[in-house]
């Protein structure tokens, strides 16, 4: 039918149409505050971070260790409560050099988000975090990295207690 329709509905507006008041629109801001419970497994994970340790969790039945921890194994549906301390060292699975913020503002120095496969887990079982202490042209997939922690007194039980991951070797 597309070839039989001469003109399609849908009227394109420009920013100028709005700014100049050529068309009317209502602007409002929604306030949405939440307090999320960390839950059983992530609660332990956050306790671990506060203590300067990354905790994984093991499913004996599936013979796998994963991070972030979870209360149940999504594959066999058994409880998963054997927590395993991980060394905080891993391998860059992938990374990006990101020049825009979450709300699309341009930044000059890129953030380097990465998926990091942590030693002691059963691949693929990485976590997302940032890389730091490395020049942008030196970042590589396969690079070995370790967690850089905030000082103990500044830690609060959050993923940001790890400031970033940096190369094991000077690059």
């Amino acid at each position, binding site marked *: *039918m*597309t*070839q*039989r*329709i001469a003109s*399609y*509905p*849908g*009227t*394109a*507006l*420009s*920013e100028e*149409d709005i700014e100049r008041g050529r*068309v009317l629109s209502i*602007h*409002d801001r*929604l306030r949405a505050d*939440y307090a*999320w419970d*960390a839950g059983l497994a*992530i609660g332990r*994970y*956050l306790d671990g971070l506060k203590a300067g340790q990354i905790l994984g969790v093991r499913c004996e039945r599936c013979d796998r260790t*994963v991070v*972030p921890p*979870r209360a149940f194994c*999504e594959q066999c549906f058994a409880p998963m409560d054997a927590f395993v301390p991980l060394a905080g060292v891993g391998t860059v*699975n*992938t*990374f*990006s*050099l*990101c*020049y*825009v*913020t*979450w*709300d*699309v503002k341009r930044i000059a120095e*890129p953030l380097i*988000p*990465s*998926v990091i496969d942590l030693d002691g887990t059963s691949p*693929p*079982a*990485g*976590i*997302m*975090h*940032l890389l730091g202490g490395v020049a942008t042209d030196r970042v590589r*997939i396969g690079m070995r990295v370790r967690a850089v922690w905030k000082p103990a007194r500044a830690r609060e039980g*959050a*993923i*940001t207690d790890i400031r970033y991951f940096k190369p094991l070797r000077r690059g």
Partner: protein
Amino acid sequence: MSMRRVAVVGAGMTRFVRRAMETPKELAWHAARMALDSCGLTLKDVGGVCIGSAPDAFDGVHMKGEYLSDGSGAWGKPVMRSFVGGGTGVFLGPHGWYHAASGLFDVVLVVAEEKMSSFYPHAQAAFVTIFDHTTERPLKPNLLWIFALEMNRYMQTYGISKRDIAQVAVKNKRNAADHPCAMLGEANITIEDVLNSEVLAWPVQRLDVSPVSDGAVAIVMAAEGVAERITDRPVWVQGVGWNLDTAYWTNRDLAYPAYVERAARMAYDMAGVREPRKEIHIVEPYDPFDYKELHHLEGLLLADRGKAPELTAQGVTAREGAMPVCPSGGLLGVGNPITAAGLMKVAELFWQLRGEAGARQVPGKPERGLAQAWGDLMQVGTVTILGTQRPA
């Protein structure tokens, strides 16, 4: 399966634009009305209504399905909204199919609408809530991250270059130049234009990405016995499939979308397709980013792993190629009002299989096509297979 056979009998769509003057409800009405008119039906003929729309956060309207219902022709009728993120538009294939195949309704109106422009200043910020609030959101992630991370892993795993991937953006934006509803059709765009565009989150650059868009698409589905009375050229639903992987997205192989393969196998089994590369004549895989078209062709088993770029380079996936991919122009060219973009792919198959796609028509009288979409936290695969042959 003791289900009734179901066909698509009509389709309609609005233009895809960066910001539409029309409200979501008005867009939905335009597309739904056009779909009904295209097959000579009225609301009285419609038994049930299926709506697809993405997160309520874009519109800032809670219960968007209910809000959209009257614009979708659902006044006083049974209506059901489905939502599986970006996968929703093609999920409407199985959703609408079920409604008619089950015997509950003879004629079903299926409507997908998205208005992303309402979110200020940019819809991207609405996506931050897809990330885990405790383990990821404090890092201030941006939607581009997951695509950039996946694209880089895909490139590294198979030794694929940015230039290989940019070919997809060029093909789709050129195809879209022939689509009357397209937002970013560019007949003369080149690979250099893509490679020289602004770097957003390397390896993702501006022209690797589909735009924020507003728009609506609707189709009419009818059960066997009714479909043939509505039109002498019904396009049959031959197979549907869907699958979700874990939301622990960092615990997955980012180079290969296994959930797309599982959805595809479900649909191929239902359609009796044994050799997809020979039996699928047109493909409309989800292409919100150029590498995703390649990634998805591999997940759909239409290309070997890591080899989809070669098909593109050889022209196999061109509109005149042996297996046209995104002849519509896809999300990269037509635009990406999320669920509407997915259903646009199903509508494109309908038009192509009826030989009604005008300047976009693929040659050779195709008999079967596949639409696929993907979404949520990179975990959803949805597939709809349409064909000119009534299923056995």
